């Protein structure tokens, strides 16, 4: 028996705002190296749930451990041991590629030597040698997102949270981005991702579907399709979210 290492463990996690329950007692576990898709309609509670998991919002009740730390009592440690990128904010436009890497490396407490080594390695892997000293502002969106993902992994976190990382990105770059995700997961990083592209939901090992604050379905994409007797995750989404 292989020992399963759970990187995210959530049990009865709840968040209320006044008499509105944004997240309603959700429970799930995500293991090491898994790609976990966190799906749901706008307003279903995904962002609120994710904020609790990354340690920036205190849950009302329930329990959650992320990367080995309690989100109630050790939220600062949670923040240190995870990576995070969103579509809206990922990098500083007014800093160069190198400066962004150095800045985030510093934030995560990497030493000077390690930052230099990582910086070189990362720029090589992305093929951005000739852009290393360009402002991030001048990069195409797809490059920015690939760079942002690499920066989110700079401190070798156990888990990386990606909030709609590929919105608006061209189809080829979108796939290159997912190849980076596959690779990271293959090397043991847990990936927790939200997306509105339902073909991307198919790339996940397992997905959860949130409806009105609760998780209504959670399984591998092929099992969900079987269960609902449909051909694509898009149809699964429409069935669940419209019900």
């Amino acid at each position, binding site marked *: 028996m292989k020992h399963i290492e759970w990187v995210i463990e959530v049990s009865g996690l709840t968040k209320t705002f006044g008499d509105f329950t944004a997240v309603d007692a959700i429970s799930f576990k995500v293991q090491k190296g898994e790609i976990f898709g966190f799906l*749901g*309609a*706008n*307003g*279903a509670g995904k962002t609120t749930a994710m904020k609790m998991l990354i340690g920036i919002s205190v849950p009302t009740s329930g329990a959650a451990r992320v990367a080995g730390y309690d989100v109630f009592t050790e939220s600062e440690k949670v923040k240190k041991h995870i990576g995070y990128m969103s*579509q809206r904010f990922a990098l500083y436009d007014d800093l160069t590629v190198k400066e962004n890497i150095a800045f985030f490396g510093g934030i995560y407490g990497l030493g000077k030597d390690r930052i230099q080594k990582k910086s070189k390695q990362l720029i090589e892997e992305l093929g951005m040698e000739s852009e290393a000293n360009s402002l991030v502002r001048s990069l*195409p*969106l*797809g490059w920015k997102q690939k760079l942002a993902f690499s920066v989110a992994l700079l401190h070798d976190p156990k888990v990386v949270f990606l909030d*709609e990382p590929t*919105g*608006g*990105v*061209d*189809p*080829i*770059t979108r*796939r290159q981005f*997912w*190849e980076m995700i*596959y*690779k990271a*997961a*293959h090397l043991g990083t847990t990936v927790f991702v939200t997306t*509105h*592209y*339902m*073909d991307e939901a*198919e*790339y996940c090992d397992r997905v959860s579907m949130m409806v009105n604050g609760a998780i209504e379905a959670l399984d591998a*994409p*092929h099992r969900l399709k079987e269960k609902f007797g449909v051909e*694509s*995750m*898009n149809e699964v*989404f*429409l069935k669940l*979210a*419209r019900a």
Partner: protein
Amino acid sequence: MQNNWDIQVRQISKSYQKVKALEGISFEVASGELFGLIGPDGAGKTTLFRILTTLLLADQGEASVQGNDVVAHYKTIRRSVGYMPGRFSLYHDLTVEENLRFFATIFGTTIEENYHLIKDIYAQIEPFKKRRAGNLSGGMKQKLALSCALIHKPKVLFLDEPTTGVDPVSRKEFWEMLKKLQEKGITILVSTPYMDEAALCDRIALIQGGKILSIDTPKAIQSQFPRKLYALSAHNRYLLLEALKSYENTKSAFPFGAFVHYSDQKDSADLDVLKTYLESKGLQDIHIVETVPSIEDTFMELVP
């Protein structure tokens, strides 16, 4: 036939300093047509919308809306078109109803006069009409913005990425609304980065890097894919993709939903050879079937 074009664009180019946002764009949209501009961020879609809605001057080329030149007759165009910009365009400090009334008033009309046109859409947010627009959810903002763009009964509607960041359910509902507006005779030019929405348009232009890759009906665009396309699956998709990338006969290999889409350097692949190769790379449960190319497959093929 020439007179039936509601939008005509001829050799439009626009640069921002060194960046060429649009390079020699030409296309036409027929009266009553639902025409889609399909392309990622940075393709030039918003620049084109701003030129057509007379908010930006092109460096070169000509464009007209309902026969009115975008430069000479900009005032006529402004009165007769509806424009929903990509970024939220409403006044956050005004309520839902105040926003709508504001847009009606500046176009010299009233909510009551054209209520029939927005009824289906506005009815869904009317229960929240006293709420400030800034406090609406994304889906509700989108419905309000569409209502505001429609309240003066435009003949031509410009919608710049109305569904970006919107979930699949709300996207589907939005497209159902567009179809209804089309039935009322409104010409619609809509842009989207979601390739699956292309199929819902009468005709589409695929656009990337300021250039149009192709213009046609969605079906015809799909058929432009030049080779046979195969959908592959195996026990491990990452390893399958890696194996295909290092296969000597591979022309293209991209993850596509539950499968990897593969095309061979020859028009049709030798499937036995391919399967043997994949087995030699340690892959199991290998399935290979020929598949119909989607618009996204064609888009990726056409990108230079």
